[in-house]
Each structure stands twice: as structure tokens, then as C-alpha cells.
């Protein structure tokens, strides 16, 4: 499905007869939410939270039982209640989402999965037609807001260091593809997916599509939007750094790079996590290393440090959190509730600057109650922006397995015990 088809099918959804879904649809497609004050948005989110829980109680007996067991009254639900409902993303691996889907789920949507770079069963999340349309519109609006301008219809060119096949698998790729399609901006995929029978995750089976890469580098269109995983920028920078003088000259003659000229409004957009690369530098260092290889101008034509945006958009969230390096820390969509949980007690963290596990509640998702925590430790601070606060990524929690060996009666020959 292309962007237009997705929007048309979303508009025809039977679920729009439900008052909650209708309200969400109107809010997403109506006047810009970014013009509202942070207080107005907070109040809007509160009412949507309650309506959303009531919607799920209407559409699935599972939620009636769940709310009852957790002593949550949907009509009075607080953010604290929502925090109680948050599930770890790990629960969405394999068929984990099934139990959470509403009874009258609309078919004809798309299922996205995580990249599988953790070696576990990927997280799989189904998106119904109306959810897909909301995803497309909401992410485009958020992207443009953080980018600082509207992407103009048909102007510019984008390169995504991914393969086109991943559009139907990974949500970050779908989000970029659909957003640009909606704007009529040409998108080139900078990678090809190698023989699928090979072992490894999709990200480990990619090879460079030199033709598209050259086309992007040599294009005169503006702005140039460069989308990649953080590792992509890092590896590209290393490649440039390690070029000998002769090789550098030859590459420059063929492509005009390095540096890569992104033109007016040009931006590098990273997303999708580390993709299995364990030795990536910290993000600020990664940006600083990479900026010398990219040249951009602001919209007035003045040369600036190339802007970097980072998209925290995991499979399980309909909308991403996006930042603009050095300008805006990560912000969610205006209708999305992002919150932090104390890593020890899982109580809400209210104080600024204190680390917490990021939780996300998307009251505009209609197929399942989308409230989850992926395992990222973040902090938040207040801001004058639309959301009233911004989030800063710190690190990811990991699952350690040391206690496997700690049985008192047995468990010796410990190395053997770990080789199961």
C-alpha cells in the first residue's frame, strides 16, 4: 500500500463509528496539534486516556477483566493506572500481541517486526488500516515539527541506507517510506537485501546499492535527507577517514564526496538502534565524528553544522520520539503519553533529571492497548516546547543471567551449566 491508499483505507474504517476512534481521527487529521499549549495538550491526553481505556473495555472482555483485577476504573484512569498496565516489549515477541487485540479487529493492515538483532524471537505488531493511517499522519507531523519546517511537496531527495524489502517488515523503514511518499519526495534505497536463505538478521544481509548511492550524492535536488541506522553514519565516516589520498580523489571525482553535500535544509536522520553493533561511540561523539563528512545549509542558505535527528521508533509504538541534536531532545507526538518509571520500583518518576525506564502510551492506537516499556533508561526535563518536557536517552537495560548458576544444592561445574 502506498501513502494515499493507506489514508483512504483509514478513512473508510468501520471503527470510525466509535466515538473514541472518530475523535482520535479528527484530532490527528485536524488543525495542527503543535499550536496548542502544553497544558491544553496535557488535558487532551488525560481525556483521551480515559476514553481509550473505555474503548478497549467496550471492544474486548479481556480488558474488562484486566482492569478489574488491577482495580482500574477506565473513566477515572490516571497516568499511574496506565503505568500499571504497561507491559515490557518482550511480551510482544512471537504471538505475544494476540491476547491484547480487540475482538472486532479490522483486517487488511500490516504486521511489522523488530530486526531480530538481539537473537530472540522478533517483536511482532499488527497495524490495522486505521492505525496505519494514524501512524502515517502523526509521524509526518511530528517529523516536520522537529525538522523545523514543512517538507515541501515533491522537493528534495532522500537516501535510506536500507533495502526496499524492509518497508514491509521494519516500522522505521515503513515510517520513512510512507512519510516521503505522502510528500511526493523521491526516496532511494542505498542497500540491497542479499540472498534471504543466508543466516543472519536482515540488517546483516545488506549490501550497498552503489547506483542509488551515487545518484543521491550527485543529485542537485535540495534538501537532501539521509536516513540510516547510527551504525551506518559511523561506518561511512570510518570509510572516509581511512581513504588514502588517491582513493579519496577518485571517489570525489566519481561522486563529489566526501564531504557529502546535503544542500539547503539537508539533514541526517538516524534511527533503529545499534543493530547489533556493540562498539558504536556515544551518540554525541558519533555526530561530532560524522559532521565533518557532511555539509548542509540552513533554509536561508547559510552553511551550518549538519543537523542530526534521531528517531526512537520501535516496532511496538505507532509514533516515534524524535530529537534534533543540540536543539531539541526527544519529544513524543502531542497525543502520546511518554513517562518514566523508577527502574527499581516501577513507580512513576516525577522529578526532572532522575533516570527512569521509558514507558509509552498511545491512546490513538485502536487495535490493542498500546502501553509498553521497551527497556530504555532515559531522563526528562521541562521545556518550552509543545510537550512541556523532553527526554534524553541514557542506556538500555540488559538481561543478565548470572543467577542461573546460583543454586545451593547443585550447580557446580559452573562452566558446563552455562553451555546449555
Amino acid at each position, binding site marked *: 500500500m502506498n501513502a494515499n491508499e493507506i489514508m483512504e483505507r483509514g478513512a473508510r474504517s468501520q471503527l470510525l463509528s466509535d466515538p473514541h476512534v472518530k475523535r482520535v481521527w479528527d484530532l490527528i487529521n485536524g488543525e495542527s496539534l503543535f499550536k496548542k499549549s502544553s497544558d491544553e495538550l496535557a488535558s487532551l491526553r488525560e481525556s483521551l486516556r480515559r476514553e481509550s481505556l473505555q474503548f478497549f473495555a467496550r471492544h474486548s472482555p479481556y480488558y474488562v477483566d484486566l482492569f478489574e483485577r488491577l482495580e482500574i476504573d477506565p473513566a477515572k484512569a490516571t497516568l499511574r493506572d496506565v503505568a500499571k498496565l504497561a507491559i*515490557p516489549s518482550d511480551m510482544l515477541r512471537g504471538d505475544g500481541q494476540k491476547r491484547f487485540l480487540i475482538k472486532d479487529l479490522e483486517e487488511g493492515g500490516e504486521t511489522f517486526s523488530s530486526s531480530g538483532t538481539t537473537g530472540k524471537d522478533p517483536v511482532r505488531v499488527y497495524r490495522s488500516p486505521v492505525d496505519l493511517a494514524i501512524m502515517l499522519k502523526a509521524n509526518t507531523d511530528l517529523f516536520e515539527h522537529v525538522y523545523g519546517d514543512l517538507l515541501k511537496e515533491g522537493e528534495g531527495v532522500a537516501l535510506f541506507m536500507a533495502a526496499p524489502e524492509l518497508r514491509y517488515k521494519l516500522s522505521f523503514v515503513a515510517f520513512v517510506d510512507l512519510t516521503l511518499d505522502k510528500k511526493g519526495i523521491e526516496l532511494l534505497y542505498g542497500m540491497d537485501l542479499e540472498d534471504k536463505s543466508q543466516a543472519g538478521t536482515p540488517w546483516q544481509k545488506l549490501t550497498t546499492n552503489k547506483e542509488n548511492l551515487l545518484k543521491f550524492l550527485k543529485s542537485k535536488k535540495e534538501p537532501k535527507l539521509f536516513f540510516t541506522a547510527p551504525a551506518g553514519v559511523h561506518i561511512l565516516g570510518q570509510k572516509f577517514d581511512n581513504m588514502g589520498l588517491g582513493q579519496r580523489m577518485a571517489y570525489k571525482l566519481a561522486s563529489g564526496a566526501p564531504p557529502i553535500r546535503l544542500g539547503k535544509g539537508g539533514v541526517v536522520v538516524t534511527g533503529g538502534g545499534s543493530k547489533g553493533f556493540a562498539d558504536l561511540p556515544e551518540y554525541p561523539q558519533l555526530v561530532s565524528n560524522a559532521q565533518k563528512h557532511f555539509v548542509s545549509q540552513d533554509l536561508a542558505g547559510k552553511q551550518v553544522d549538519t543537523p542530526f535527528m534521531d528517531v526512537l521508533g520501535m516496532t511496538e509504538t505507532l509514533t516515534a520520539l524524535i530529537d534534533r541534536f543540540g536543539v531539541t531532545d526527544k519529544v513524543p507526538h502531542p497525543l502520546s503519553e511518554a513517562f518514566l518509571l523508577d527502574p527499581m520500583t516501577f513507580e512513576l518518576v516525577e522529578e526532572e533529571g532522575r533516570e527512569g525506564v521509558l514507558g509509552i502510551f498511545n491512546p490513538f492506537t485502536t487495535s490493542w492497548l498500546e502501553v509498553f516499556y521497551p527497556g530504555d533508561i532515559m531522563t526528562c526535563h521541562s521545556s518550552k516546547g509543545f510537550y512541556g518536557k523532553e527526554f534524553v536517552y541514557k542506556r538500555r537495560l540488559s538481561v543478565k543471567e548470572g543467577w542461573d548458576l546460583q543454586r545451593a544444592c547443585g550447580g557446580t561445574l559452573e562452566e558446563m551449566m552455562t553451555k546449555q
Partner: protein
Amino acid sequence: MCKHVPLAMSHVVEPLLFDRKVETVPSSGGPKVLELSPSALKDLVISAASAQRELASVPVEERLQVIEHMARLWKDKLDRGEYEALKEEMAASTGYSSALMETELSFVPAVLGASNIRKNLEASVQGGAEALYRFVEMDETEMFRHVPIGPVLIISSGNSIVPTLIPTVVSLVTGNLTILKPSIANYSGVIEVFKLLAEVPDSRAARALRSALVISYFGHDSPTLKAALEEMPLGMVNFWGAEPARTIVANMVGKNRNHPRFFVNGPFTGMAVIEEGVDLMQAADDLALDVVLYDQQLCSSPTSAVFIGSYEKAKEFLRAAGDRLESAGMEFPLPPDQDRMFVLQGARRFIQTDGGLVLSSKTPENPWTLVLSKERSSLGGLVGQFPSFNLFARRRFLEVVAVPDADRAVELLRSQPDHPAFRGIDGVQSVGLAVTEASLPRMVERLVGAGVHRILPLGDMFMRGAVEPYDGVAMTSLFTRIVYWRTGNAILEGQL
């Protein structure tokens, strides 16, 4: 890999042998770990006959007095605070709280106490303890003498001291050259105990016991361990542990042309059975104690429970047990850990969304979790979603399944080894009962046929009686064989 890097690793871990110098080689257990070389162990094994002969010539009571003296030395040092550093080191290496390690260290004198060992020998050796030293008449003209089966290799249990001391002391006292392989986690503690053999007053018994004891770590790929298991003339291998090590070791022992006895103390667990009608507050108190002591890591610790009665009453019990866990657990605080808490929270939420009722602590130092399920366990899908949250990783985590009758309770107990959340155990070893007087006899009868080894009052599940067998077997019988001597045949007429 093992998360808790023992402090012991900061100094050299080397074999403990008394009055001897032998060759050591680096072990795969760590950069500062030394183990006996194959030739050194072989020499020791070959010398077993003389060491065992010498020990056998010492009266049992004298052997016991040496062990008793070790107990007194330990207690004195413990009282003087000399084991404070060891306590902290063991807490760091095992992951238990310091308070629990303190409790553990205080149990040592009881394990080494001569009266307890004597009781055990009297109860488990046919003919009594004296039969370990001389022939004892069992019937007219028929006599038994129990002689050591050794040399004995004990690949001992993992992360506390006491379960390692028990077989080692029994093997030694019954006269065996005893080669003990502790784990890296409990190595320091075990060594501290047996080092006391060098501090007891000099005597023939003390010297004989010292000559009969060898303690060394062996890495999983140790050539020495391989040679010992596959080739050396051992009389007995006692393995404490689970798969896959158990099968690997069994296969190695199977190749040994000397055909040593092989006995596995496999991984078991405990279950609590509570019946509506008992004093629920008392039962909650008892259950909390069993859960908190050793954080459910003993084969006797309850890792599941059944409540025979109504769901509503079970809920009431669950709340009481939660209150008790809140206070009992704080006496043994655990070091908080964000990563572990992340997995625990995920598991709690998985169960909640799967229909289970979850009560849990909000204190990271005491992360107890109680789950109430109706008639069937709610943990079925848990390990599929959270593979790292297996039985061996769960701490202070207990599911109570409410069932209508005792038959259903025993059915759950029998099916425990097949339950995905309990994968890796051989079965339920210990059952802690809190049932009414009227139900007790029938319940015990049901349990006798259900494969359990121990039936106990709830609250005392961790306690071992002096005369208790281990996993259904009298421990002395593992380490000895009986020499039968008949002085005349006339009495046997008509017997066969």
C-alpha cells in the same frame, strides 16, 4: 556467565592439602585459579589405600572428636568476628544477603557437631557407628563391618557451604580418601572450614583425617578432572548438580574401567501445601521464612505452593503471606539490581495480563512476588517469553495455586517436573505441610506414593535432622561397602 565474580578471585585459589606439596596447574576457572595436575591427583589416588588404612585404624569416636574440635574452633572464631570478611566475600560471590551468609556461617558448628554425626551414623550404619571400625554381630555367627569405598570424588553443590560440608564430612568420617571439588562461589568458605583441621590438637586421628582430605577446584575442561573421572581408580563419584553437567560427568564415569559408584544428588525443589482450616497467619509466617531463607535456592525450598480450599480464602492467605514476606525479607536484604528488577517486573506483568493475581513488594532490596492462580498454574507461558526467568533465577517468587481438594494438590506436585517454569528439576524433594490434623494422615499417605523424599511441617523445610537420609538414601551407604563375615554355618540351616 556467572554474574557475581567472587572476591576470592582477587587472590589465588589453590588446592588445600595438608603436610604435602604437590604440583598444580592453571585452571580454566579463572586467571588466578590453580588446580591439581593430573599426575599429582593420580599420585594421591594411588596412595589412597594407605591413607584409608591409617584412618580405618583410628576408632570412630576419635575421628568424631577431631571434627567436633573443628566445630568449636569455628564457633570461637565466629564469635570473635574473625569471619566477617568471609561473610562479605561469600555474600558477594553467591548473591545472597550478608545476613543470610551470617546465618549460614552459624550453621557450620551444628554440621560438624560430633553428636549429630554420631546420631546419623548410628541411624544409617547397620550395626551402628562401631561397625565402621570393627566387625559387629548382626545375628549369631554373622557380622558386618563397613569399610570405605574410596577414594571418593565429590563434585559438590554450588553456592553455600553447608550442603558441601555434609557429604564431605560423612565421607571422611567413614574413612575415605576424599577429593572435594567445591565451586568457585563457595570455595573460600569451604576452605576456611577445612583449614581448621590444621589447628586442632595434634593426634593420630587428626593426622589421618588430614592425610585423607584433598580439596581442589577443577575447571569444566580440566584434564585432571577428565583423567579422574575416566581413568583413575576411584571407588565413588558423588555429583551434586543438574544437566547438562550431570550427563557429561555420567558419561565420563561410564568410561572408567574401575567402575566407581556414581551417585547424583540431582536438582530438586520444595512445595508448600496449605489447607483451609489451619491457622493461616501461622502458615503465612512459616511460608515466608522458608521462602526467604536461602532465597529458594535449596532443594528443599518451596518454589511453589498449593492452597486446598476456596479461592477467596486463598486470597486472604496470599495477603497474609505478602505481609509476612515484607517483614521477613527485610531481615535478609538483597543488593538491588536494575537489570534483574526489569526482568522481574516483566514477569509480574506477564502473569497479570495472563489472568494471574500478583502481589508484590515495592522494596527493591526485598523483591518478593506472590501469584495466586485458580486450579492451574499461570506460569505456563512465562519462561517462553522470559527465558532468563527460570527456576534457578527466581528469588522470593512463589505461585500459590488454589485447588479444591488434596487429590488435585498431589496431581500438581507430580506434574511439577514437566512444568515449563520448573524445567531442570528432577522432582519435588520436600513438601512443607500446613494441613489440619484430620487431613494429615491421608495427605501423608498420598505423598508417600508421589515421589517426594521429605515430608515436613511448613516453616522447618530447610532444617535437616541428624538422622535424615539424603534424597532417599542414607548417606553413609554411599561411601561404604559392607564386609560380611560368617563364623559358622550351622545357624543358617533352613534359611535358604
